[in-house]
């Protein structure tokens, strides 16, 4: 990879580094103070970040999401709402990772309301994040904000479902036969490349498929790679059935 490409990919980091260099030339005391200020957050982050990632991954792995998702249809009222909160609260990954999963759920019959609940709770009420919030802002602060947020999401998802109809969502796009990776959803966890390195590889922190034509696909390995993807970004379409 060329240096220019690397700088382009980490443009923000490069800008911050430049400002620091300028700061140290113009005003070394302030530069030192900035590093010291950043040091506090780096220390705090290093103490909590590893556990948050591990806890998130463990929850994602152990809670039977597939089973829960079967109950998210329109008829499942209170139960569907409750389970949508559960799915959103335990899932791993940033909010944009939730988009493709929710589209898939909607195609399988989940209601608009439940999708909005999943998206919103995915964003604000992650369990490991609640622990982090309690650490820095106090358990009382966290608990009150959590309760209010759950109430707010319950109300506005109901309002939203009154405004948005199923037809407002874009229809299904016909896909070509073969393997597909939703690059917008991929968060670069590298699991697929580790599970089936003959077919998947990483490129610019995102998974891509290697040319696999003529290769005998090992369906077991492929299935385990598809299943392992935390954001369900991989799909396989067997030819001839479209």
């Amino acid at each position: 990879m060329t240096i220019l490409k690397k700088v382009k990919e980490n443009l923000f980091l490069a800008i911050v580094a430049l400002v620091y260099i300028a700061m140290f030339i113009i005003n070394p005391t302030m530069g030192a103070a900035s590093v010291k200020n950043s040091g506090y957050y780096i220390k705090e982050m290093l103490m909590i970040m590893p556990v948050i990632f591990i806890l998130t991954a463990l929850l994602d792995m152990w809670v039977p999401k597939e089973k829960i998702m079967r109950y998210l249809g329109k008829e499942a009222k209170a139960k569907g709402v409750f389970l949508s909160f559960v799915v959103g609260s335990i899932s791993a990954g940033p909010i944009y990772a939730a988009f493709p999963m929710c589209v898939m759920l909607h195609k399988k019959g989940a209601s608009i309301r439940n999708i909005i609940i999943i998206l919103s709770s995915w964003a604000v009420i992650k369990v490991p994040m609640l622990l982090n919030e309690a650490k820095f802002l106090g358990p009382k602060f966290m608990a009150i904000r959590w309760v209010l947020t759950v109430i707010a999401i319950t109300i506005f998802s109901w309002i939203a479902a009154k405004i948005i109809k199923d037809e407002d969502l874009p229809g299904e796009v016909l896909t070509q036969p073969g393997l597909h990776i939703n690059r917008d959803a991929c968060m670069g966890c590298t699991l697929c490349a580790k599970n089936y390195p003959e077919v998947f590889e990483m490129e610019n922190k995102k998974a891509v498929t290697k040319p696999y034509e003529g290769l005998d696909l090992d369906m077991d390995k492929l299935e385990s790679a598809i299943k392992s993807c935390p954001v369900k970004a991989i799909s396989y379409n067997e030819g001839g059935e479209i």
Partner: protein
Amino acid sequence: MDVFTLVVWVGTIAFLVFSFAKDKMKTKQALKMAFGMGKGMLASILSIIFAIGLILTIIPPEEIAKFLGGQSVLLATIGGALLGTITLVPAFIAFPLVGTLVGAGVSVIPSVAFLTTLTMVGVVTFPLEKKEFGAKFTAVRNSLSFLFAIVIALVMGVII
């Protein structure tokens, strides 16, 4: 390390041991996933932290508190909510940051509005969301989230 962090660590390690005893493969996958997620985010997290360090040196938290203290609460809250909408700071950096600000005397209400819109409303992710769900869905979800973030903040200001 404070008690709270310690409890989280102990709990997670216990969960990890239990998980490992039950299913080695699954646990290994989870660890790989955690490591992959962390590695992918490290560069952007570090640059955000250094940027925050810089900003807090140029504008100390006490100054921010003084400035916001002079404004009307409603205005400061809408400002906090707007700021949360346009910025992309990972939540686990936002909590210690807001902790610093509240400690320096910034009112709780704008801080809560900032925290809620930060994660729930996304201008940066808007095009992505629109592509997947259509313009109407995205506009309705984001604007309702924004409104309710302000409501949550105001109610919290009354309770705390």
